[in-house]
């Protein structure tokens, strides 16, 4: 079996992805991702030195809008799909007053 990715790496990636996986799933994904990554290794056959990475298709530049303010869509609509709310707020289990990453 391929060892392109280890079980520990898969666990780390699951954590980064915020996916709570069972041991069984970790095991399965380790094998499947390993096989896919093995296939992807194919790209290393190509010499890409000096090749510009292609992040966009169309060569568009400077698509900007004027600074004109509209209005919000209304609190009812904002909260319409919220799994839990305390109008006018969204509601989540208490977050430690830690900090965001911004």
């Amino acid at each position, binding site marked *: 079996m391929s060892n392109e990715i280890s079980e520990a790496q898969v666990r780390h*990636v699951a954590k980064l992805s915020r996916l709570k996986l069972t041991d069984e799933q970790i095991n399965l994904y380790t094998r499947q991702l390993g096989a896919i990554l093995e296939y992807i290794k194919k*790209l290393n056959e190509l010499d*890409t030195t000096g090749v510009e*990475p292609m992040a966009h*298709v*169309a060569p568009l530049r400077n698509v900007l809008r004027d600074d004109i303010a509209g209005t919000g869509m209304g609190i009812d609509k904002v909260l319409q*799909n919220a*799994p839990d709310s305390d109008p006018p707020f969204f509601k989540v289990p208490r977050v430690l007053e830690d900090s965001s990453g911004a």
Partner: protein
Amino acid sequence: MQITQLTAFDLLDQIKKRQLTARDAVEAFLKQIDKHEKTIGALITVLPEYARERADQIDQMLADGRDAGPLAGLPIIIKDNLCTQFAKTTCASKILIDYQPPYNAHVVEQLEKAGAIIIAKANLDEFAMGSSTENSGIKTTRNPWSTDCVPGGSSGGSAAAVAARMAPVSLGTDTGGSIRLPAAFCGISGLKPTYGRVSRYGLVAYGSSLDQIGPLGADARDIALVMNVISGHDARDTTSVPESISPKPDYLTKLDTPLKGLRIGIVKEYQSSDGIDPQIVAAIDQATKLYEQMGAQLVEVSLPHTQYAVACYYLVATAEASSNLARYDGVHFGYRTPNPEDYIDVYSSSRAEGFGDEVKRRIMLGTYALSAGYYDAYYLKALKVRMMIRQDFEKAFEQADIICAPVAPTTAFRVGEKTSDPLTMYLSDIFTISANLAGIPGISIPAGFSRDSLPIGLQLLGNYFDESTILQAAWQYQQHTDFHRQIPAGFIEQ
């Protein structure tokens, strides 16, 4: 002829001449849905009341002699990853099972302005990730040509619905072949426009730099009709191409122009592809011969890097997906796990319970490709290979006006046949993926049937913003063949 067997073009003509009302059209297709949805499973939401109300409004406008738009009274089905304010938009995912968008997608606005009537929302692989529609978190769609087989994916619902004549046309989305593959498997026509041609505003993102919305229908003319309405610049999508760079054409005007002198590229590397069904090779040969007879000129082109397209695609698409799907976290909308331990668990459990296996797998792959220490080796490498693939096409289009290729290596496979091996499934898209990476348009049209009566598709790839030429080539081919007129037995209303 029965209403459900009419092309969109003929149906619109009859409505315009008031030989038929919009309401008649809507009723006929709703009846077809009623009759066949149980076996096919093409649809997630059917909108009978909404459709009837819209039809009556349009009939009233027509009766008053007002202009009700170029698609006035045309029933249409759209893929359920296109946002509608009037109907849930689930992306066939448990995580959005009750999600009601607060706005309409650009294409929905355009369709409705043009008088089209959205009668249902179609099934798909969850978040458009798949090639068979078996990854739907809601239902499995069957191929109307053989209900043991998949319809292809991810726009499997949109393709099966048109094949089963539940609507004359539908909208799908194509990130790696998701319109063209199901069109081929279901024996209909389907176009993936140039990236930037149709606004993505309101299309729930999977791979943002690859996603494109396009029409599916019986023939190229029906597709041109819909393209005339959905394409064009939209300021809400900064990747949408402005008129100044590429003016929007009338896609109908060039259809009847003869092909004399058209240079059709045959891809050298595709001639010797392993694992491609010889019946498909034969059908493509037949098609190119026909093109020659029609006055086209065949030229050999080379796409040396397309063999890397699948590997490249699965890095680019999944990296973007891992980020695009981060927002489904159980906080602001969508599914939330019933008893979270804490706010972190709201994320991890809601996502684990809400997403299906394939979605999780792709999020994991994409996250890995972007993570510290792997970015250069995977993601950046893929972006460079992507550039090489694009350059292949740029060179090829110096020699050819369009490129002729298979859509898939096989005809529709059996339900369950490839579900346990994701990689084999990914390889179904081997002939379609490079068009998404390069951003060029491609159409899939019916080009024959296999021994077991399954449709075979022919793919025509065009240069940037040259949908008109591939539509012309497709339509001209359809003037000399009748594969596109075939309707699977059992779906012809008596």
